[in-house]
Each structure stands twice: as structure tokens, then as C-alpha cells.
């Protein structure tokens, strides 16, 4: 039986080792942050941090998880939001919100150890994240704002 660490807590995996991490997080740990968008690592809706790196959980077999897993729920809560979550709320950087968790996780990886980030760096850093509703402009604004807040 594999044990993984999710948002700081150990979890004993029930599913078969080939099960993508996304389904373990959603159906066993009952998390709702990472979402199913494509199952092909093309859209970024399922992004989580694994050992600090942003990875698409929809194609990562749970047996291959080699570091602590952090989802958007682990970054912050409604009462104690992460600077990115706070910035996304202030900038109203979501419409349907399906891409939002993935955007925040990718941004968290991008902003690690940085005091500022340029428009071009944000576009490149979040290039694996798609948004269909058109919240892109506000996402860029939110990430910029959060970078200032993390400094």
C-alpha cells in the first residue's frame, strides 16, 4: 500500500498503483481543487504541486508520486488565504472557475523564491493552463499582484 502526503497529511492510497493522482485526490482524499479537464495534460485544470513542482495530476500514476503533494486547498483556506488566492479574489480573476485551481498552482510554482515577475514571465509560466471563459487578463493581473505580496 502506497502512502502519499497530501497537504501535509499522510494518505494511504486505496486505488491501484496505475491510477492517476487526480482520481486519488478527488475520490479518496475528497479534494475538489484539482479538476478533470482533459486527462491528457493539455489544459492544466488538474495541476498540483509535487515536491514543489507544478505537475498535471491527470497523467501521473499515484505510484510515481515522489514528493509531498500540495493542492490549492493546501496553499490556503477561506479564512487564511494564500497571497495568490487573495489576489485572485481581489482581481475577480475567475468566471466559471474551472481553470482557477490549476492557474493558482502553476502561479505558486512560478512565484517560488521570486520577488517580482513580468507580464511575459507570467504568460510563459502559465502556458500549460487553458481558460475557456476568458479570465486571462485578470489572471495575469492577479499573479502580478500576488508577486508583490509575496515579496
Amino acid at each position, binding site marked *: 500500500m502506497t502512502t502519499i502526503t497530501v497537504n501535509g497529511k499522510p494518505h494511504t492510497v486505496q486505488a491501484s498503483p496505475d491510477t492517476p493522482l487526480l482520481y486519488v485526490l478527488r475520490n479518496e482524499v475528497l479534494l*475538489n481543487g484539482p479538476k478533470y479537464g482533459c486527462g491528457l495534460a493539455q489544459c492544466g485544470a488538474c495541476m498540483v504541486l509535487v515536491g514543489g513542482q507544478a505537475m498535471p495530476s491527470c497523467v501521473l500514476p499515484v505510484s510515481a508520486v515522489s514528493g509531498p503533494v500540495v493542492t490549492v486547498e493546501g496553499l490556503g483556506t477561506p479564512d487564511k488565504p494564500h497571497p495568490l488566492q487573495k489576489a485572485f479574489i481581489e482581481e475577480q480573476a475567475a*468566471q466559471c472557475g*474551472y*481553470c482557477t485551481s490549476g492557474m493558482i498552482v502553476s502561479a505558486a510554482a512560478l512565484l517560488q523564491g521570486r520577488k517580482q515577475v513580468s507580464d511575459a514571465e*507570467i504568460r510563459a509560466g502559465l502556458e500549460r493552463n487553458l481558460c475557456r471563459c476568458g479570465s486571462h487578463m485578470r489572471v495575469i493581473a492577479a499573479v502580478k499582484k500576488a508577486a508583490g505580496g509575496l515579496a
Partner: protein
Amino acid sequence: MDQPVNRREFLQTHLALVVGITGITGSAAIVGDAAAQAAAPGVIGPNPSLLDTWLRIGTDGRVLVNFGKMDCGQGLDVAIAQIVAEELDVPMQFVRVVLGDTRVTPNQGGGSGSTGVRLGARPLRNAAAEARRLLLEMGSKQLGVPVGALVVRDGVISVAQDSGKSVSYAQLIGGKNFDAPLKWNKVVGNGMNAEGQAKPKAVSEYRIVGQGVKRADIRDKVTGTPHFTAHVRPGKLLHARAVRPPVAGATPEAVEASSIAKIPGARHFVQGGFVAVVADSEWNAIRASRALQVRWSTPPAAFPGGEAGLFDRIRAATPTASNAVPMFAGKKDHDAAPTLAALAGSRKVIEAEYECAFQSHARISPSCGVADVRGDRAEIWTDTQKPHYQREGIAKLLGLPTENVQVTWMPGAGSYGRSDADEAPFEAALLSRHFGRPVRMQWMRDEGTAWDPKAPAAVVSMKAGLDDANRVTGWYFKAKGFNGWDVKYWADGPEQVLVGQLLGARRAAAYNFNVPEESYKFPNHVHWWETVPPYLQDASPLRTAHMRAPQEMQTRFAQESFIDEVAHAAGKDPVAFRLEHMQDPREKDVLRAAAEKLGWQPTAAGSGRGKVSVGRGVAVHAGYGSYACAVCEVEVHQDTGRIRVRKTVVALDCGLVINPIGLRATIEGQIMQGLSRALYEEVHFDERKVTSTDWYSYPIARLEDVPQQVELVLLNRADQPIGGAGEPAIVCFPPAVANAVFNATGIRIRRYPLTPEAVKKALS
């Protein structure tokens, strides 16, 4: 969202009667008939003639409002809460809006035609005004002074001259019924309205409406707080996946059950053309859907000629219907003879044909639905745009009385019209009944892109004549395309969804396309549309349905590109030429506002030509009671064929603005989706199947496509009726981009999407 009325209290005291009458839907061939939209009574839901149906006040003073529309991700409920708070004189935070639940919300038509505020708010505004009137009467009795001596602020009624004498709404009515009537206009759907004796406030009195109010639900979205359809996980849940045929039109001839025997808990289901698997774990359901061995029939090629033959097929097809007015406006014949005669006698004739590809809703996450069917009752969780109609459709699918099916609407992945949102819930219901457990069906990415309903492809033919003075002598517009709704704008029967068609349900014929509604006046002006037969009659991955600004993307691409072509032939500036022919002052105003904001100057086409050519283009749109104009400044890269929109200005007049924050967000969304549909989106298909199955084969706009500069000009016309805001702006982008490309390079591209391949080819 905000602090809700105590849910237990709400459920205990809710007394709205459920009145459901299943009308006869699916009438005979209807062409552009307004009656088609309004005719069938369908499901009414709770009784709209009772004030308590619409609005209740809890013991804590919180206001619960039942809204029969829902939100596709634009925060519509915030505007509704503002309107109710305004009329009732309560703080915004006191108001909670319940969306789309068929148990408690009347059928106001769901998300539809940008009517959320302009039509959907009406009964709620009236109900809130009536509630305030009744509360003032109660307050008057309680405080022993006439109504005229009272003031209301923040849900508290007090004597104007003696503020110590007061009573709150909660004290007067908290947790109790008003038991008061409203006059319902007997319309079901978008046009539903109900009125009391009270008159709503004048715009000049507004303190809340018109203010920028932020959405509270974004907090849920950034923290992963459960609120989506995809989060619903009843006990004993079975996960389901469909198994689609390798080619369109193929049906299952045999299924090898043993092929999934080794996958724990996996079972298959076959009925008619529908094949699915279920399992206790989601991953096992996915594995089983890939492992299940099915022998499929070998039908004739569904799409002869493939996408290479698409537009010639449209040109050559015999029309199925023809009409000269926009959607839902009735039927009108056309006569092109005077126009053609005028053109024949003109000094110069300009002719052009525009081609518009099939496009997919391509939602960020495909269809998802949960169903729990027990005996003769069913409970459904869905993010459909039309929950009341889905309820009716699933009831018909299962052969149950409509009252026995309840649909809980929840937010889902953004939806922009009649998307795939209805598909999974119908399938889940069918499987739940069969397997006797709750079922969650999630469509996979290839199903969402290949098998969802599509915006129809079209060819639009345009001609215009000029006289010696370069004045227009005639204007000819003919849109010819696939029918705008192979499946209806709502799923009120099995024939309207893929699984129903796979089970043999057949839809009645109805045809629709569109003509432009802008106010240009030309001599000898004729316009009409024609629809052509579909490639595949039933269960087609190219079946069409409404997608954001239905048939307007196609018709305005042509009209707004062509007017530029005619202006160019006449030696006139595109902005000036439009202004010359526009009749509607509000249309002129948005055009001037956008042009001015960008600093529009007449320039010669192709004067910016180079390795990177720079140019500007404009387009206008009138529709939904609103007026929009977009101006784009683009770079065209010769080596890659890439178009980069570096600046855009959008001016929008949608009458009275309820919430400028929400309005800006809605326009920004339309900018990105409009650029996406202009630059990238086309459904690829070969002779046997749709080959757009993922984000590589159906690319959309990404973060890198965000323009460097975006300016919005909101023309707040408080004296005008509220217009729709969710669709008018997106229409402007394909033609504005094509016009900008022409201005930059001198090359006219007459097809959307304007892909890099198409641009490179055109430039060479």
C-alpha cells in the same frame, strides 16, 4: 456565497406549489417563427402567481430569492441580488439567490439569449417591490402611523419623525409566508413575468444598482470549496463512461463482456446505439471504457468529401428552408430581383463570399452529470443552462411524470449556449435506472470536443454596387449554412440529446439561420438566409445547436468584412463609411466611442506591410437590445502567419448598467473567446469522423494571446431598457481582425478562423 437563510428553516417553511404541465413540444417544421420559442408551455415549476415562490425572508432578516435562470460563470446572481436589494431596501449581503433548482424556482427559461437581466430580473424586481409595499403596510399597522410617515433602511422600517419607533422585516415576516398574490403573465420561459400592485423604483432613486459589486463566490473557486456539479458524490456512487463508435453513424453489433472481466466491478451497458461501462472506481470505469471490445457496424462515410469539401457542399446543396428575418422574428419572403437589376446597371460591382467553419463549444471540462433514479423518482445534478427543460426531457426519457424528476442546478464548467451540458445527465439517468444506484457520468476530452453540439458552418455571399459618385446602388446578402439548431436550445425531450437519438428518438424538423440586424440603410437592400441538409441526420458529431451569438458570428463576419471591402472600393474610410449608412444613433455612438478611444485615423491598406505588418480594423454589432463595437490593432507576422492582436478597444451600450464590475468581466471574456474563434477554432473532420478530439486538434486562445492593451468603454444609458451583455461584443472580433489584417497587408481573408496556415498562404 453569502450567509444563507437557515437551510432547515427554508425547507420547513417553503410552501410554493409545484405546478407542472408538460406541454406538447417538438412541433412540425417551423421556420424563424417567434411562436416556436414561446408556444409549448413545458414545465412551469413552482407557481409564479405567489409572492412566496419568488421571495422569502428568514427569521434572521436574510432574503432568499428564487431565480429561474442560472449562471454560466458571469456572476449574474450578483446583478439579481443588487436589483432585489434595491427594491427591498436591504443590504446586498442579506440577499441570497437560488439558481435553477426545479423544486423551488419557476421556469424562467434558464441561461438563454442574454436575457438574464433584461428579462429574468423583471419578476424579481416586481416581487421585491411588492414585498416592500406589503411590509410597509404591516409596519404601519404595527407602529400605528400611516405608510407615508415611514422610512425603510437596511431592512428596518422606522417612523421618519421618530427613529426610535421601528420594526425590522425579520420581526414582521421572518420565517412566515406573505400569502400574497402576483399577476403572472402566463408566459413560461424567458418571457415569464409577474407583477404586484407596487411600482418598482425609478432609476434616479438607485443606490445599489449601478454600483460595482464583486462576486463572493470566487472565494469558493480559489479555495476548492465544493460547489460544482463535479463535486457531487452521493453514497454508493457508480462511475460511468460512454464508449463511442470509431466512425460517425456506426452502431454496436456485438459487445464482448469478457473483455472487461478482469477490471474490478466493471459492467457494460448497451441499448440501441448507446454503449457505456460502469464501475465503483472512476479509474476502473475509464479503463473499462478503453478495454471494452465492441464490434461496430460499418456504415457509409458520414461526411463525404471531409472538411476539404465542406464549403462546396454548402454551395451546391438544395436549401431546406429560406427566410428573410432574424431568428424568432417570424417568416418573410425576399425578392432579390430589384437588387440584382440595380447591380447589373451599376458602374462597379463588388462581390465576395465568406466561409465560416464549424466550431465547438469546447468547454474547459466536458459534460458531467449525476443521477439517482429510485423506482419512479429521479434526482439529477447538472450544470445545464436550462434545468427546467432538462427535467422534462429526462422525465420523458424515463417515462416518468415530470413532477417525479427534480433537477438541482449547480455551477459547472463555463457554457456558452446549448453545449454538451445536458448530455451526461441524460446518460447518467438511463444508467442509474438500469443499475439501481446513483451514477456519475463524465464525458472525456475527445467526447467534449468531437461529440458536443456545434456552431454551424456557412457560406455567406455578398454583392454591392457603386455608382459614378461611389454611392451604394444595391446591397445583397445571402447566408447559406447548416441549420442553426439540429438540437433545440433546450433539452426538453430525448430527441434533443445524443443518447436519446442513439435510442431511436427522432426530432421534429425546424430550421433557422440569421440575417444582420444593424441599422445600415442601403438602396435596393435584400437579405435572406437558407439552410441546407445535415451530413448525418441523427446522432451526428456535427449536429448543430446554439453557441454564443448563434448564427451572428457567421453573418456579421460577412457583413462587417464586406462593408469594409465596399468602403475600400469606394475610396472611403471604414468608420466614416459605416457612419454614413447607419440609422440608429446608439449604433453610431458605440462606433465613435471605440474609434475615438483607439485614436482611429484613416490609413491606406497595406501601408504597414512588412515582415511584421501592422494595421487596424473595426466591426460593429447590434443585437439583444445592445450595441457593440470592437476596434483591433494587429501585427501580422509574414514568416509564421501568426496574427497578434496587440490592442483592442470595445465600446458597449447595453442600456442601464447594473454592475460595471460584472459587465467588464463579461466583455473581457468575449474578447478572449472572440479572438479565439477568429484565430484558431475550427472543427476538423474527415469522411468518417470528427478528428478534433483534444486541445492540440482544436486549439483555443491562450494567455499569450491576451492583447497588450485592452480598453473598455461602457456607455451607460440609464434612460434605455436593459440590453443583453453576454453576446453582442464577441460577434465583432472575427470581422474586426479580418479588417485589421487587410489594413495591415492589403490582403483580404474571407474565412474564419484566420489560422497561421491560411494567413501564410494568403500572404505568399
